């Protein structure tokens, strides 16, 4: 794998100039003739009965083309558990419940019309604390399930229970144990581009849906089901992406606003766009799930972990989206971070009248890692072992099979921890308790796809045009992370072209082959693997053409030279050098014999061969095109929640140095080191970009960010009060790339989209403890919490 020409190079991102110069077509720029603008009316209560809705005044407002309520559309259930409808008829169960929607000729008129809709509510008692909601006599958020069967409890019927070994026995045999309760908050994904879509039906009710989804085929399927359920059978649906300004989990599920947009388009027979304001993005888009963990761990007298027992309670909110499935990823660190033989984990998702949650970068991993890594530090201290050493003793090794059944292939966790220790000056700085401290945390994440659906595959089709542009058609998406650049590098390497020859077509269900979605850090790995394979096929086809045409071209050229110059002596050429594709290679657009790479007659620019191959006269000729559908060799989790659901796993560690102001409780990060096992960095600067970005989100998670809910209502729905970090809060992040090429990865690469976020917050919390001796187990670590904890400690 040496001698790579394009993989491993810092090739600048391809599409970004258009973005920074304003040329890129984001959802705002995506316009259709006659397009209308949709707006949604949300509930005014966390829980209420809708007594009446009057839309007359709104309908009469000039410029309004449609006003719809739950009574105007079929009462069809949507969502992961089918526990909600698109527009709510009788009951609202959360503040973001969609009660009515308007389509108008301008967004302003639509907004105006919302104010004219009169809704009469009868408020009902609401429940906001999941612990309260779990009690047997708690009022029910849902009286029935999706099929109308009565429900007896607010606890969701989900199977999040995992057991390996004998935790009870291991606890008794442990020399040391530590128990902690930790909480993580709701946080908003804060995409730069807010949510939106455009729905457009043709006269046969076929749907063109411009959506920001990163799962275009999943979205198509959900919409297909929805259309079927509302009586539109056999309609063609095409899902396309505009340029997308970030996803971070928000584009995984099909959201209610998208179904509303479809309904408005159906009703008005016009293209309709819905576009969220930032306030809506905060209050009407599901954030990362909040969770409460109780974690207990034990180790023997040498510091080897003996058991881990985790219980989690997840506030599900009023309905169910992907948030309720985050335990499937919490399981990763809980079962498999460090070697721990006996593990039990149970997660309980509870309905409340809070807003519901969905996916966010890292899925359940950052939440669970905060629990595990907080406990690791605590247990290390109890056992009297240095926290870094404790992690080193218990680290994962290549070849391990974890209690969950994960098969660890490559695993440079040791190098990651060592790099962090060194760069953060661990030995010199740890344990001073002088207001400055260092802390660390590690991570494991899926890095070779994640079999959450029956298929975890991706199809890639590569066609090479007659002059040598390489079109790559993929069912994947790009939400801004730079995938087109990475795929272009991989395709250039595999085919023998240059990255600038490669043209990537993403995000169109009509052009791309099926893909499971650009999620779970899987794109570079899975699509990359498909791309390598398809690229190699393309190259083979071209070399076959070369065997056929290079001799002809050479001979023709020699003949012409002879004709021009009778004194010309034809050289003796050894045509066996190029008589089979195996003897040829194609790199950087040049075809040459492997045995004589600089051969003056045989070395040929690829474009000449392509033209010769195509333009042969009448009848059939050969166009260069290949496609590969690749699905990694992995397993779906079984009923016991076990199975090797990724082809390989990524490891990493973060180290943080903080300074804590003991009088104000402020935590300042002096340095953050984030070392990651990436297999191979296809594009090191893009890898670093992923690490920096994830680390920053991790710092926000650790110190400042939270969606604040008061009685179910989001009270900080803007960037003034939602404290995402600004450019001025820049902290020095050192990204360390650890390369240990994975045999299963494309050129050895592993996924790196999510990992950087995972260990950051717990590393900060552990550093705070090292600095001042108080452990904050409730994110974010605000100055108030630090000061209160210090005061409590001082008594």
């Amino acid at each position: 794998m040496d001698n790579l020409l394009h993989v491993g190079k810092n090739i600048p991102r391809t599409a970004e100039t258009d973005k920074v110069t304003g040329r890129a077509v984001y959802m705002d720029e995506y316009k259709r003739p006659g397009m209308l603008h949709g707006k949604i009316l949300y509930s005014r209560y966390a829980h209420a009965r809708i007594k009446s809705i009057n839309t007359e005044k709104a309908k009469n407002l000039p410029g309004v083309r449609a006003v719809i309520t739950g009574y105007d559309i079929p009462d069809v259930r949507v969502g992961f558990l089918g526990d909600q409808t698109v527009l709510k008829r009788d009951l609202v169960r959360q503040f973001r419940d969609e009660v009515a929607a308007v389509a108008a000729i301008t967004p302003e008129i639509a907004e105006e019309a919302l104010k004219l809709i009169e809704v009469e509510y009868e408020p009902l008692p609401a429940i906001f604390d999941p612990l309260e909601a779990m009690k047997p006599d708690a009022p029910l958020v849902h009286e029935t399930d999706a099929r109308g069967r009565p429900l007896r409890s607010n606890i969701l019927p989900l199977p999040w229970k995992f057991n390996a070994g004998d935790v009870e026995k291991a606890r008794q045999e442990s020399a040391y144990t530590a128990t902690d309760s930790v909480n993580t908050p709701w946080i908003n994904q804060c995409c730069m581009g807010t949510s939106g879509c455009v729905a457009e039906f043709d006269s046969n009710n076929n749907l063109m849906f411009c959506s920001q989804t990163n799962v275009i085929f999943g979205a198509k399927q959900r919409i297909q089901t929805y259309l079927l359920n509302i009586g539109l059978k056999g309609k063609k649906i095409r899902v396309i992406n505009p340029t997308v300004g970030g996803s971070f989990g928000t584009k995984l599920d099909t959201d209610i606003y998208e179904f509303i947009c479809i309904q408005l388009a159906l009703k008005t027979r016009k293209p309709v766009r819905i576009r969220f304001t930032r306030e809506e993005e905060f209050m009407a888009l599901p954030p990362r799930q909040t969770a409460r963990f109780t974690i207990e761990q034990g180790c023997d007298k040498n510091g080897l972990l003996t058991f881990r027992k985790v219980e989690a309670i997840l506030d599900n909110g009023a309905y169910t989206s992907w948030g309720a499935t985050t335990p499937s990823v919490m399981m990763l660190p809980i079962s498999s971070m460090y070697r721990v033989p006996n593990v039990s984990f149970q997660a309980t998702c509870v309905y409340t009248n809070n807003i519901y949650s969905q996916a966010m970068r890292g899925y359940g991993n950052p939440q669970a890692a905060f629990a595990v890594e907080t406990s690791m530090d605590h247990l290390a201290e109890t056992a009297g072992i240095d926290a870094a050493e404790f992690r080193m003793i218990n680290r994962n090794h290549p070849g391990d099979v974890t209690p969950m059944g994960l098969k660890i292939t490559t695993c440079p966790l040791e190098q990651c921890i060592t790099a962090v220790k060194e760069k953060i000056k661990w030995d010199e700085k740890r344990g001073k308790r002088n207001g400055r401290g260092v802390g660390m945390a590690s991570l494991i994440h899926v890095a070779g796809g994640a079999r959450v659906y029956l298929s975890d595959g991706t199809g890639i089709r590569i066609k090479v045009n007659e002059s040598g542009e390489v079109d790559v058609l993929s069912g994947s998406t790009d939400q801004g992370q730079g995938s087109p650049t990475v795929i272009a590098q991989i395709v250039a390497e595999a085919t023998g072209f240059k990255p600038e020859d490669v043209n990537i077509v993403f995000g169109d269900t009509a052009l791309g082959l099926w893909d499971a979605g650009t999620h779970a850090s899987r794109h570079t790995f899975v699509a990359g693997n498909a791309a390598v394979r398809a690229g190699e096929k393309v190259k083979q086809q071209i070399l076959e053409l070369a065997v056929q045409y290079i001799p002809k071209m050479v001979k023709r050229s020699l003949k012409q030279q002879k004709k021009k110059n009778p004194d010309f002596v034809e050289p003796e050429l050894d045509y066996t050098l190029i008589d089979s594709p195996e003897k040829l290679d194609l790199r950087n657009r040049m075809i040459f014999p492997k045995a004589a790479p600089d051969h003056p007659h045989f070395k040929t620019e690829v474009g000449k061969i392509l033209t010769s191959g195509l333009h042969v006269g009448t009848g059939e000729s050969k166009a260069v095109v290949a496609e590969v559908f690749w699905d990694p060799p992995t397993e779906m989790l079984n009923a016991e929640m076990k199975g090797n659901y990724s082809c390989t796993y990524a490891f990493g560690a973060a180290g943080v140095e903080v300074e804590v102001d003991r009088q104000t409780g402020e935590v300042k990060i002096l340095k953050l080191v984030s070392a990651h096992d990436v297999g191979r960095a296809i594009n090191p600067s893009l890898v670093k970009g992923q690490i920096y970005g994830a680390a920053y989100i991790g710092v926000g998670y650790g110190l400042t960010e939270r969606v604040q809910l008061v009685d179910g209502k989001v009270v900080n729905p803007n960037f003034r009060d939602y404290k995402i970090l600004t450019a001025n809060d820049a902290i020095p992040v050192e990204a360390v790339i650890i390369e240990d090429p994975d045999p299963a990865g494309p050129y050895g690469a592993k996924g790196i989209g999510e990992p950087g976020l995972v260990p950051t917050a717990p590393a900060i919390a552990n550093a705070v403890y090292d600095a001042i001796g108080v452990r904050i187990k409730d994110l974010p670590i605000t100055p108030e919490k630090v000061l209160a904890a210090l005061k409590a400690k001082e008594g």
Partner: protein
Amino acid sequence: MSNYEYHKPQTVKEAIGLMESLENAKYIAGGTDVIVLVKQEKLAPANLVSLRNISELVYIDTKDGLKLGAGVTHSAIANNEFIRKRYSALADAAGAVGSKQIRNVATMGGNICNAAPSADTACPLLVLDAKIVIDGKAGKREVPIDDFFLGPNKVALNAGELVTGFVLPDLGSNTGSAYIKHARRQAMDLPIIGIAARAAIKIDGNEAVCRDSFVAGNDISQTIKRLEDERLVFEDVRIAMGVVAPRPVRAKKAEEAIKGKIISEKLLKEIGEIAASESQPRDSIRGEAWYRREMVKVLTGRAILRSIGRIVGPEQMTNPNRLW
């Protein structure tokens, strides 16, 4: 969103005349408060009278104290060497407003007239004894800033009146001032609390010793101890607090209590306690009352100390991010 007419007078007189004749009119300077309020539909003016083209509102006059036009932007203040040295608290505050983009358009006049309890430049103007210069159809008048704030977003302006500028007295070279914005991030944030201080000191001895103690290093207790050994006496002190009451307020009892005393760690702590007793913070989503009160205790002393730092070592611009 409301529709409004936008007027662009060239002179103060013209502006006052427009205000007089137009229905439901509102002044707009940088617009960074006004437009937000209009978008939130908390304000629905039929007419906006822009002050942006009135050149007579834009001046920084450093003869005899400091005179500022209402139209001066936060950037202009934060970048002004003279203000940074002699009216440091104001430069601290102006430099901490919003972000560079906001500071480039937002004005002092707008900040003071909007009169948010969190307005960053309010506390500095309170400790610097500023007077507000007002013009209107009834003529010009001047109001001490402490009488100008009436409550949240309420100021002592009569209908149609506008603020033309601010007058700040010359405070002498033995005076320094500072403003501490205690916020959750470094930009685009409102303070959890803001504290401004101004201290005039008498040093019975060698000024250089004081300077050295500040420049020397981190251990603040030692710095204070050295200043105490130098018998550094507070001649006059002002303390103002933001976000702890419906309007930015002075901590007058604390100011009284410190006057004439020799600096010591104990004294600064006591002053902090007194100032805290004068604050009436509330719980809000942006901060809890108990924490705000605690911060008054801590940051009052720090702001005073930072002020002293500015007297003894103005050329160092003793403005480290952290003293502790």
